[in-house]
């Protein structure tokens, strides 16, 4: 008898399960459940497994479930993955979509922090929405082992339906090439706000993904838009940055991935980042020219909070408007770093007020202290003020509070 396994087991695994399924000829369904939460959920886990097997028309099977406290949507995903290793089926066993998960996002919304979550690790997903990241990225690409790619799809699909990410932009990073297009089939029907395209090197690459998404949207008559963030991770991608940024109206931001980029260049990635200075400034410039957000690469040492803080300040100074996070502890540092500081808001407020005062008096040239203020300075100050209002750092009627 051919057996199929899906999921994760082991002493360190939490909120997950491993299922081993063998389809038999007779004898009905035999479930051997070893559950850490058996006393409280054993019966409901068994019932759920019966339901899933029946849905796929399986009447005779031996099933072993090793459960370390998996939530129902996880058990469903694991069992469906194992079933589909043994039989062909177009059917999907879907947990209900939480009504509160059906929100849309705006192209220009803040994207300071986006938390990467490995697509095959449910334990990290469940509370991910509590840490105030602007976006949550369910990753099907580099954080998932090749042999787990397929089962991760079902888990990510179910997570999109069942986990409340509390208003964070719901993002998925798909795989490269054909696998990525197949990922879209599975995830797009489940209200994905944004898709990250890895190793993006040309506008065609973006168009291909965009086309596939539109095809699915039309088929299913989906109303909400799905935005795109191409991730540039190679020398060629950097050279094509501007055309990538303008490849579709759905591209709202462009990110750089420095691990792969430095590998492509054949150099070491350093904290100072001199080796990627050109690439980063090129990305910023291309993104700004295309009126989209430039997003910086992740900072990979999660214990070095001081290093991250410095890195964010440098990144912001170059013009980046956000950064990926690989641990929830990075989120606050990143959100605070990219937001305008008290000092910046204060100065910008003074500039705007002085400008308006001068306009009232009919003066063409304005001075604040000993410094001359001209139109671009005012434009920048207004950007800062508008962002501060949007982030709730100052009230919309800030002028009357002065």
């Amino acid at each position, binding site marked *: 008898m051919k057996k199929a396994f899906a999921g994760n087991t082991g002493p360190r695994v939490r909120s997950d399960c491993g299922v081993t399924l063998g389809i038999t000829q007779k004898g009905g369904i035999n479930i051997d459940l070893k559950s850490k939460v058996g*006393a*409280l*959920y054993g019966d409901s886990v068994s019932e759920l497994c019966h339901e899933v097997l029946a849905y796929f028309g399986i009447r005779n099977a031996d099933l072993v479930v090793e459960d370390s406290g998996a939530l*129902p949507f996880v058990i469903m995903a694991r069992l469906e993955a194992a079933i589909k290793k043994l039989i062909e089926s177009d059917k999907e066993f879907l947990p209900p979509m939480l009504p509160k998960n059906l929100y849309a996002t705006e192209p220009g919304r803040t994207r300071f922090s986006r938390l990467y979550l490995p697509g095959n690790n449910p334990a990290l997903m*469940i509370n991910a929405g*509590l*840490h105030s990241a602007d976006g949550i990225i369910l990753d099907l690409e580099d954080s998932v082992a090749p042999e787990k790619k397929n089962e991760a799809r079902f888990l990510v699909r179910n997570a999109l339906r069942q986990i409340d990410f509390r208003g964070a932009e719901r993002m998925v990073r798909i795989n490269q090439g054909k696998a990525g297009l197949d990922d879209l089939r599975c995830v797009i029907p489940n209200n994905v706000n944004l898709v990250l395209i890895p190793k993006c090197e040309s506008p065609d690459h973006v168009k291909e993904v965009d086309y596939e998404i539109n095809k699915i949207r039309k088929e299913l008559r989906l109303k909400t838009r799905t935005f795109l963030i191409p991730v540039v991770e190679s020398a060629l991608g950097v050279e094509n940055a501007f055309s990538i940024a303008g490849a579709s109206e759905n591209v709202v931001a462009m990110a750089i991935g420095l691990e792969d980029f430095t590998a492509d260049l054949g150099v070491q990635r350093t904290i100072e980042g001199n080796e990627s200075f050109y690439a980063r400034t090129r990305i910023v410039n291309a993104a700004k020219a295309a009126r989209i957000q430039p997003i910086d690469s992740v900072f990979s040492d999660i214990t070095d909070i001081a290093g991250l803080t410095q890195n964010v300040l440098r990144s912001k100074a170059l013009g980046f408007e956000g950064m990926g996070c690989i641990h*929830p502890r990075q989120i606050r540092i990143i959100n605070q770093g990219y937001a305008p500081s008290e000092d910046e808001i204060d100065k910008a407020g003074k500039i705007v007020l002085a400008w308006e005062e001068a306009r009232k008096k009919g003066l063409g040239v304005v001075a604040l202290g000993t410094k001359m203020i001209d139109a671009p300075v005012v434009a920048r100050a207004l950007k800062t003020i508008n962002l501060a209002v949007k982030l709730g750092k100052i009230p919309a009627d800030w002028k009357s509070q002065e």
Partner: protein
Amino acid sequence: MKDIKVKSTVNAAGRKVPLRINGEKVLPFMGVGKHLPEGRKYSPPIPSCIDYPPDGNKVVASLGEALSRCGLRDGMTISTHHHLRDGDLIANRVFEIASEMGVKDLVWFPSASFPCNEPLIKYLEDGTINRIEGSMNGPLGRFVSEGKMKGTAVLRSHGGRVQAIQDGEVKIDIAVLVAPSADSFGNAKGTGGKSACGVIGYAKPDTMYATRVIIVTDNLVDIPCYPMEIEGNYVDFVVVVDKIGIPEKIVSGTTEITKSPDRLLIAELTASFLELSGILSDGVRIQAGAGGTSLAIGVFVHEILKKKGWSSAFGFGGSTRYMVKMLEEGQMGYILDAQAFDLEAVKSVEDNPRHFPYPVFNAYNFHSKGNLTSMMDIMILGATEVDLNFNGNVVTHSDGYLLHGIGGWQNCLHARNVILPLPLFRDRIPVIVDSVTTLCGPGELIDVVITERGIAINPLRKDLIRRVKGSGLPLTTIRDLKDEAESICGKPAKPEFEDRVVAAIKWVDGTVIDVVRQIKTKNK
């Protein structure tokens, strides 16, 4: 075992409890502060100094000899303290000797048990030990829950243990007390030597009330062993051994704050709550445990105190390096210490005059003339479950198994603001439930539950609710928290129990607040 029909009643908390436990009459819980025993405290037999060596040398050759000379026999109650925690080598040895001597039906009365005491299961099985009256931990708890212990376990708080001794509810025949340093007269302390644990305050009632007291040390010093926490005047025999404990298991080299982002979020929320509610103020009195989340709360509170230029008047330990840091940097006036958890805390007790032993005998005991816990402003505690009435459980898990002791938890509920930072669920198991599996503390004493998904304040604390209104804190209700947990995890089934009572849970005044029944094991 024979099944005697024992009469039972429903106590003031609505729990069905027997009127006799281990053949002795017990009182049902009557409500917080309702039971006030009268009469005089129990007293041990009168010794005379002429029965002891005039040169003060009470050292005998071995623990076996000491136990024999104390008259060890069937049915006696043997007490130990738990300051060597999971590194203790002596408690198990006592029962090994008793077993070799063929003694039966002993009662072990520890101030707490640890996983290292698992070998005692052997002596529970062979009849050397009849029962444990103390905390249940890990394997021992499982053994008891499955109905395998001959007698009924009795679980008491640290303060309740002192109360039971003073009420004469538990008469200690022989106290076997390990001491990191001792002299030949029996003066002893928790510092010095290779097995230093800082303080040994839990042994205080045992020294005063036991009929016989044996000190076991691996560091015999010249008279006087100063400053003595145990006074030699109470001591019958001193035994010197190679090793009383395994140092790295006595204290952790270093206690660490949690790394879990979810727990850190709970800790941050708790610190914000303390700040925004105004509970945290200059001169505040603080107590928190040594768990990863509590330590993180301590660190965040320390930052707030620094920022405001405030200082905590004193903290009550369980001390850790984080508390020591507050003391040394000027954000804590004194550390009153019941136990030291890490090496830096042990060193601080030894070196810093503002960090000193303060036994639970004084701090938690129902029969003290006043209690330290009710003077504390902030009390951070844990729980395995909290229910819709804010009742708390710390001894069983939701699957019905007995797996923890009460510790000082019940005593600490008398603080002015009792705050429970808890995850909403652990591995799919909701922490907020309809009704706690085992009632350990009445909800009227639990003020705030802080989870990663919101803060619920006990409706009885209208003052607190008023103070944090409009603060921006994620306030919710206990019912909404329970509903949210169940919407994520699913509604859990209830464990099934047999009728047999395997453990009694005592309230701080000695009444029975609840019992634990034998787990019904499903046929596999």
